[in-house]
């Protein structure tokens, strides 16, 4: 059974968030809180808006020319869409891991060291070494790569590359980690390692994961949000969503009756 926090430490809030691609409304007024103590999973069929919404949380949609975001999203109470917000800083605080592992075509060491160096988190080579080791340890990769840190990151297996990307996100000391289908390109063993890693990282970072795999949502999260056609249909305790969903649409989707 999950351990319930009495008062979850709210990290991010979204209020009546709408996303438009041109005139098409892809997200239709979503309000949700993401907290530090629970892994939050976003589930829903393709095109439901779960990835689009995830991307609003660190302003990745800014890079899509036709995308427009309305509503309010805060990080520790601060509006992340305010003009005062430094987007580069924001994306360090709210890191992201993508569907396909995308390590830099550099050494394993450099993949981790790059972020802390440009963000000025390390004063010396020794500081950087410490950050690299700590990040790789937290990413569950250290023991596998400690003897070949100068090898190319792209030479690792898919699962190792994905953990390298998680390590890279961790290295800049984020507060939130967003994961967009982080295991869909991985085999079951590599997937299990990522899921175990998510479990270990819980509490240290607020984690939001988008997944097509409902079993994965059930395994890794304590809160589940079901999206459908741009609506947040239901958001609740994961075990409730999977044993006794309140909404008909949620029930049909998770029992395999959708469409």
């Amino acid at each position: 059974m999950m351990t319930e926090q009495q008062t979850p430490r709210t990290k991010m809030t979204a209020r009546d968030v709408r996303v438009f691609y041109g005139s098409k409304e892809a997200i239709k007024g979503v309000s949700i809180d993401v907290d530090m103590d629970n892994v939050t999973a976003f589930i829903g069929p393709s095109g439901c808006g779960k990835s689009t919404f995830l991307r609003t949380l660190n302003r990745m949609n800014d890079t899509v020319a036709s995308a427009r975001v309305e509503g309010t999203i805060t990080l520790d109470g601060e509006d992340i869409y305010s003009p005062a917000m430094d987007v580069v800083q924001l994306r360090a605080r709210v890191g992201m891991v993508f569907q396909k592992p995308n390590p830099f075509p550099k050494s394993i060491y450099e993949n981790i060291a790059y972020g802390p160096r440009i963000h000025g988190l390390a004063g010396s080579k020794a500081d950087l070494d410490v950050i690299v080791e700590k990040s790789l340890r937290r990413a569950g990769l250290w023991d596998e790569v400690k003897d070949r840190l100068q090898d190319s990151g792209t030479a690792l297996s898919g699962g190792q590359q994905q953990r390298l990307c998680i390590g890279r996100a961790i290295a800049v000391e984020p507060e939130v980690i967003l994961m967009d289908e982080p295991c869909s390109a991985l085999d079951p063993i590599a997937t299990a390692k990522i899921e175990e890693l998510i479990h270990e990282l819980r509490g240290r970072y607020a984690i939001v994961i988008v997944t097509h795999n409902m079993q994965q949502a059930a395994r890794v999260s304590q809160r589940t949000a079901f999206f459908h056609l741009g609506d947040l249909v239901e958001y609740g305790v994961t075990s409730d969503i999977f044993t006794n969903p309140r909404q008909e649409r949620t029930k049909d989707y998770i029992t395999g009756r959708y469409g």
Partner: protein
Amino acid sequence: MAEHTIKAFDDEIDRLRGLIAEMGGRAEAAIENAMLALQRQDTGLAAEVVAEDKRIDAIEAEVEKLVVEIIALRAPMANDLRDVIAALKIVGVVERIGDYAKNIAKRVPLIATNQRTLEPISLLPSMGQVAGEMVHDALNAFAARDADLAVAVIERDTVVDDFYNSVFRTLVTFMVENPKTISECAHLLFVAKNIERIGDHATNVAEMVYYAATGHTLPDRDRGTTQLED
């Protein structure tokens, strides 16, 4: 309810529900025939009830196997999950109900006494009928996913309990007045206790039906008024 995208899943759920309906029907028939055999001193019918219980046991094993397969292969969720879990628990209980009917049938040859000397036996058929109806309704409630019917079954358990208390007092009084009938009356006491347990088990089935239908468990209720708990 809408169909699953994977049709084979629907087929398995249908088969599961069909097996439970058959099992419930057989348990109900076993109760009815056991009581009939008792009233008519029909040892042939009693032997049939005993033999038929094997089929109830076989269905239980079949359902258990099917449930394990469904959980392993289909990873059922939400109401599907609750249905499957309830099915697994219900067959265990219905199997016990079958055993109680069998126990009653087994006593028929031991109560081979002229019925007229054994007045208290007259209360038992009505008691058996109520318990049989509870089993019938509990299984119907499962088939129809009818939480209200399940609650109605649970409420009826007190009727069976009242019957039991009444039969108990009657039998004790009768034994005091007719010491020669003590052996037969003792068997009848066990019969009454078996029927009372059938009512309890039908109640358990109804509680599971309620859970499967609503996703909530019923609050603990007053467990009736039987004088003797076993």
